[in-house]
């Protein structure tokens, strides 16, 4: 007889910690006048980012025939449409979905807290993230550190990520003893990601909250690029206990530039043999109409719970992981 695993894996304490977290963060945003919103999980368009693979379903939901609906990989695009319509500061807690992501710190559906602060600089938003996270984890004394992406690589690996060649990056990976570094075929960003995940991440946020910020323009994603010498993408990642918790942008507002980046992503998808996704014309129209200058951030609540509970696997904070779903 097949044994049916029906029991939840998470402890009662983990369920309570999650419930407390949600209450706390809602109080935090209510105090600050940030409006809670909900946007659709299903969308006719998707983020074309080649590093993110959306899930989809085919159904007739509007009485106009079958079509493809994408499960959100982040609520970013519909939230920006609310901002363009004058919503003011908004936040959302929602499930997001990503194909092909399963591991100790990855689960195909996870809970994201995403918020937008019109008028905030990236620095203002990093400050707010630190205040919120310290409060949620109940450690107001937790040290906060900021580190430029360029400084991180220079200090720890002796490399300038803006100018290093793939050969230099590969040599650094080999020198650091990364298995198969001699065999892997990667582009510049691939090597930077390999070095970041294998050599640098484990130490980030070891003693507190570490914000890594100002990324190479080729890793801008949806961040504005600050012209300068060298130019930098106004983006940050928050690390705690060697774990990436949040990703923030000084949001790109230029509709033409956004369209170019989408097109580049779609071209890359084609080269990689990935399925194509429809361009989000409604987001582009909203950008055209004008989204106010804003910074925005997405924070993974499941990983935050891992850090709070000292868990080394996401399954410890999920009531029913996908294998039990």
């Amino acid at each position, binding site marked *: 007889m097949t044994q049916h695993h029906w029991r939840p894996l998470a402890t009662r304490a983990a369920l309570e910690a999650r419930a407390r977290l949600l209450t706390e963060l809602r109080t935090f945003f209510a105090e600050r006048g940030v409006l809670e919103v909900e946007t659709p999980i299903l969308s006719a368009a998707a983020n074309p*980012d080649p*590093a*993110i693979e959306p899930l989809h379903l085919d159904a007739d939901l509007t009485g106009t025939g079958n079509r493809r609906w994408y499960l959100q990989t982040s609520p970013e695009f519909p939230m920006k449409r609310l901002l363009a319509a004058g919503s003011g500061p908004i936040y959302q807690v929602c499930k997001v979905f990503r194909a*092909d*992501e*399963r*591991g*100790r*710190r*990855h689960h195909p559906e996870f809970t994201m807290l995403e918020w937008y602060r019109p008028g905030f600089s990236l620095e203002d938003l990093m400050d707010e993230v630190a205040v919120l996270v310290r409060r949620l984890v109940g450690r107001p004394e937790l040290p906060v550190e900021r580190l430029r992406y360029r400084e991180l690589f220079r200090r720890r690996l002796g490399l300038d990520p803006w100018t290093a060649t793939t050969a230099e990056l590969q040599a650094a990976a080999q020198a650091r003893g*990364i*298995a*198969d*570094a001699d065999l*892997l075929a*990667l582009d510049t*960003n*691939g090597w*930077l*990601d*390999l070095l*970041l*995940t*294998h050599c640098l*991440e484990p130490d980030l946020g070891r003693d507190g909250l570490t914000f890594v910020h100002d990324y190479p323009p080729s*890793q801008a*994603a949806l961040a504005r690029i600050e012209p300068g010498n060298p130019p930098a993408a106004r983006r940050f*990642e928050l690390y705690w206990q060697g774990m*990436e918790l949040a*990703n923030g942008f000084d949001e790109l507002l230029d509709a033409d530039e956004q369209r170019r980046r989408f097109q580049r992503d779609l071209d890359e998808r084609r080269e990689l043999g990935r399925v194509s996704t429809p361009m989000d014309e409604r987001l582009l129209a909203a950008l055209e109409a004008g989204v106010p200058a804003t910074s925005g951030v997405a924070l993974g609540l499941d990983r935050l719970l891992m850090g709070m509970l000292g868990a080394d696997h996401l399954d410890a904070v999920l009531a029913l992981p996908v294998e039990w779903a």
Partner: protein
Amino acid sequence: MASYKTNEFKGGLKIMLDGDPFTIVENEFVKPGKGQAFNRVKVRNLKTGRVVERTFKSGDSVEAADVHETDLQYLYNDGEMWHFMDTETYEQLGADAAAVGDAAKWLKEQDMCKVTLYNGAPLSVEPPNFVILTITETDPGVRGDTATGGTKPATLETGAVVNVPLFLEQGEMIRVDTRSGEYLSRAKED
């Protein structure tokens, strides 16, 4: 040829790397939020037993290894090969010294063993966890000494040497744990 994508990686999966069969010991998926994902994998070479780390770009595929485990009965050794039989099909298979390895010193005719097959041929042999073997050579027993806890080496019928209590005699049968190589108790043939 069957293959596996990195998202199918998990402990115990058998894959081909550089022409050798490996089993995955540990698989870790690492990915920056906005970038390239990797699988950091610890794999054991099924021929040599060596564990090495490998790095894969997530989404890559690797060839599946035609490796599976089966229970076979040990029949006899012809001086070169150890012969096993599938007790259902009566099919016989020969394993060489490289495949049998350390298991050789525990193999007693008719015992059931776990044999790992690679492309249909024995790759490794695991003896039963517990075996009953006859002592063929040891110093004379010290009568009545069941309490001092002293031991002496004893050679068993398969050639294995284990430490046994002083009171045991040549010709007696004992039960041994093959995983630790330790004497457990006196035994009767069943």
